[in-house]
């Protein structure tokens, strides 16, 4: 079972819908997380959401508790939430991407995707990862073709993955494939 932790976003159920094509999915509000569902889940997903990771200490706590024990996936805010919990700074961008389709490029550090591949993806983020960023076993594996902003990471040791963009958006052309790859990793 995949357990989606919802940060009250208007895109969370697109994520749930997409994940449901692969496994049973449960979804609860971040403030009403159910312990037995957490323990039962094989994968925990941190949803997109408004605001910044510092607004969701409960989600960081869950991340730290289950890191290395279960597969963990973060999308948009969820992506930032994981990196923030790993000590990263999440900062405002000069140019903001809401409802924007852009291209991301896979680099050599990816184990799941082929380096040099490009994907058209939908973006909804005000904030971004401040770089340089270093955490053990974490690699930035996709970047925006134009701005170079971090768009995906992989931690293949602890099975932790994240997308800054929205694989569930209609603006992302191969969203299903992207999700399938990390679910089967």
């Amino acid at each position: 079972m995949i357990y989606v932790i919802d940060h009250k976003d208007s895109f969370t159920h697109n994520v749930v819908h997409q994940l449901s094509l692969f496994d049973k999915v449960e979804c609860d509000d971040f403030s009403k997380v159910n312990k037995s569902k957490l323990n039962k889940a094989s994968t925990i997903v941190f949803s997109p959401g408004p605001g910044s990771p510092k607004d969701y200490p409960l989600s960081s706590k869950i991340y730290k508790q289950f890191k290395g024990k279960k597969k963990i996936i973060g999308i948009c805010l969820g992506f930032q939430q994981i990196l923030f919990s790993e000590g990263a700074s999440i900062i405002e961008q000069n140019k903001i991407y809401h409802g924007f389709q852009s291209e991301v490029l896979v680099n050599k550090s990816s184990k799941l995707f082929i380096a040099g591949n490009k994907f058209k993806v939908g973006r909804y983020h005000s904030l971004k990862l401040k770089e340089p960023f270093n955490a053990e076993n974490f690699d930035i594996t996709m970047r925006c073709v134009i701005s170079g902003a971090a768009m995906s990471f992989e931690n293949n040791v602890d099975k932790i993955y994240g997308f800054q963009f929205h694989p569930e958006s209609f603006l992302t052309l191969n969203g299903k494939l992207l999700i399938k790859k990390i679910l089967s990793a």
Partner: protein
Amino acid sequence: MNKKNYLNSINNSQKPFIIYKTIKGFDLFTDFSKKIILNNQNIKHFLNQNHSYKKKYKSTDLYIGFFGYELLNNLIGVKVPRQKSINFPKGIFYKPETIINLKEDLIYEPQSTHKIDRNFKINIDQNSYTKIFDKFKKKIRSGQTYQIKICTKYKNKSKIDPLDFFCRLAKTNLAPEAFMIKDKNYSIISCSPENLINKKGPSISTKPIAGTLRKTKNINKRKALNFFKNNIKETKEHNMIVDMERNDLSRICIPGSVKLKKEKSVEEYKDLYHYVSLISGKLKKKVENIDIIKAMMPGGSVIGCPKISTLNLLNKQEKENRNIYTGSFGYIKFNGDMKFNIIIRSILNYKNISEISVASGVVIDSNAKHEFNENFIKAKALIDLFK
């Protein structure tokens, strides 16, 4: 009864009635046997009434009416702080015993000429509007909202003939979700263009509008499409709404069934072009009426995105109750089918005060002066009826 004179006679009869646009003309609902004033306590019961004991449905087996904005907020657990209020009901539904089909050309001769005041007062001037606008832009930069719609309200004191207003509005601006309600102590006249819920059996669809272009001699449908496609701001706003409506349908639909049926197409109306998408899905088996209303309302395209966080920002900011504005009007049939619009481009007349609310969106690249004027243009079509 002669249909030609029907409007005049029903208007003179002082009976409450409702007119709602259909594909070919209008339906008129009257002879109400029940009137239900909704509040936070009775709405759940109202929505979950089970009528399935009936074997054969009549066309009048339905409730028609509206949900106000505050009621819809409360239904999804969003609080609206104490605001300036005219104490207008939070929602009203009627059970009609008569439905009459009317042709598109509504014939009505207003009998008495009310003296109408044409002066309107706006509740937020351009200065205050700009301040709110800048505040919300900061909230976009910090990621608390991606798109938010600031509402301004125009008010005046006057006695109006709502049927006359509606007939004139139908001539100049025949909107696909137009409706009017005339009851003893209030009336609503609306040229809403936007359908929020269209449910038949297990099928449900929503048709959000984001993007409006005024018609001129030099523009045709193809040019309008190019305009929208090349306008990055409009496109981004529209994309956001499409993903949000997909999300809302996904809450209640079978996984994999939510489909974007029409992506960013242009629809032509009498005075303008709209940039619309059509999203549909198949409802999960155990979904009840209340689940549908909670998932879809208030309609996202007129609020902003993400819904909950944006509603909270709006409610903290707004000093006056929205009443019907950005609520929903429509009907629920006893067999569970329903149709609802989003209440925009409307006049609420209550206690001889008319109010017209309008809103336009703040996204990261919008401009305060432009949006303030855009609000006025939207209100003007309705203000012009006051003559």
